[in-house]
């Protein structure tokens, strides 16, 4: 079981998903050395809880996609370590939740699934043999707009999609990430949701999310493949994406499944640089 988490449930007591969120929070605290944060009290007096969030990693349990608990954490400056959304888990597990507040068979099954998921240590894949010594070099072109500097690597091994994500392809493997356009546009990145290890990602499929106080964006994969490595440093330090989204802030590595087909929808440095400049100008 997970231990020593500070837990912030959404506690939305007018919806089934909120009730489940609350119940999960209570169960985790009953069985373990976790500390619960009351979202109602935290809204008016968060000082008490900063001591707990400074001491323990923070687990957010959002009920639905309105993500009230996540927004509260952002508003109060709590650093988030892990998030789970009840309705998303219900969808992933093909469980339909009741419209009432009474928890039945599906709701209890979902609670067990979520508790079990939280209890299972996350898989971390080691680099496969032959990959550990791969070195990534970046040769940048820059573009200044006011006080903002945009770097774009011009290495021929790097491909881009028009969703501002890059893939550095070596052999049958690609390291992927976002460009400076994304990190400048989002401003301070506060949370990174990685893709699942071993997940099969389609080209233009989601390969994680990043979130700032301004917005949340899906990371749209430039290539198709299986996730074989995640930059899990970003879970604790998402700000590395702001620092350098190519070197320190890369997202994941994929074992490519159909790169020859993927290339049809990818562009190289010259084209992306022009597109990015137009987008930057459009922000004015």
């Amino acid at each position: 079981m997970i231990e020593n988490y500070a837990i912030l449930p959404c506690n939305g007591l007018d919806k089934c998903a909120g009730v489940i969120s609350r119940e999960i929070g209570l169960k985790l605290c009953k069985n373990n050395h976790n500390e619960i944060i009351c979202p109602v009290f935290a809204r008016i007096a968060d000082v008490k809880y900063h001591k707990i969030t400074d001491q323990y990693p923070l687990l957010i349990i959002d009920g639905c996609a309105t993500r009230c608990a996540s927004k509260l954490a952002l508003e109060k400056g709590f650093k988030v370590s892990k998030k789970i959304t009840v309705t998303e888990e219900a969808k992933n597990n093909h469980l339909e939740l009741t419209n009432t507040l009474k928890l039945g068979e599906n709701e209890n099954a979902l609670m067990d699934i979520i508790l079990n998921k939280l209890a299972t240590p996350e898989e971390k894949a080691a680099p496969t043999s032959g990959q550990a010594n791969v070195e990534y070099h970046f040769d940048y072109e820059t573009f200044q707009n006011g006080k903002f500097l945009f770097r774009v690597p011009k290495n021929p091994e790097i491909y881009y999609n028009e969703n501002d994500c890059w893939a550095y392809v070596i052999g049958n493997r690609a390291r992927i990430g976002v460009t400076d356009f994304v990190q400048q546009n989002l401003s301070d990145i506060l949370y990174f949701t990685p893709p699942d290890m071993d997940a099969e990602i389609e080209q233009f499929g989601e390969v994680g999310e990043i979130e700032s106080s301004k917005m949340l964006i899906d990371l749209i994969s430039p290539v198709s493949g299986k996730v074989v490595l995640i930059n899990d440093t970003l879970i604790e330090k998402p700000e590395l994406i702001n620092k350098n989204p190519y070197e320190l802030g890369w997202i994941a590595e994929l074992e490519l499944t159909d790169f020859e087909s993927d290339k049809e929808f990818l562009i190289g440095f010259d084209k992306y640089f022009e597109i990015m400049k137009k987008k930057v100008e459009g922000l004015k």
Partner: protein
Amino acid sequence: MSENTFMGVDRSKIDWKPTIDYSKCNFCMECDKFCPHQVFEVHETEEIKLVVKNPNNCVVFCRACSKCCGPDAITFPAKNETIQKISEIRKEMESHD
């Protein structure tokens, strides 16, 4: 050709936009507050208080507004069908070049 293109294809030819299920939408306007591209428009005084006003402003393959939707009222087209359509249009454009 329009200035607004995606993968070299005129954006207006690409069917990628949110669709609102009004039987679920509670008009909380979270999607409108969230989207920086003015895809939605709020009509406070009307019965249908939220519409998709600028579908071509929607970033192709972005579904982020649907992730902010508590009642799960927003859907998008199937990604593979959109990719297929873009591919067909590009091939047609190449054959005319």
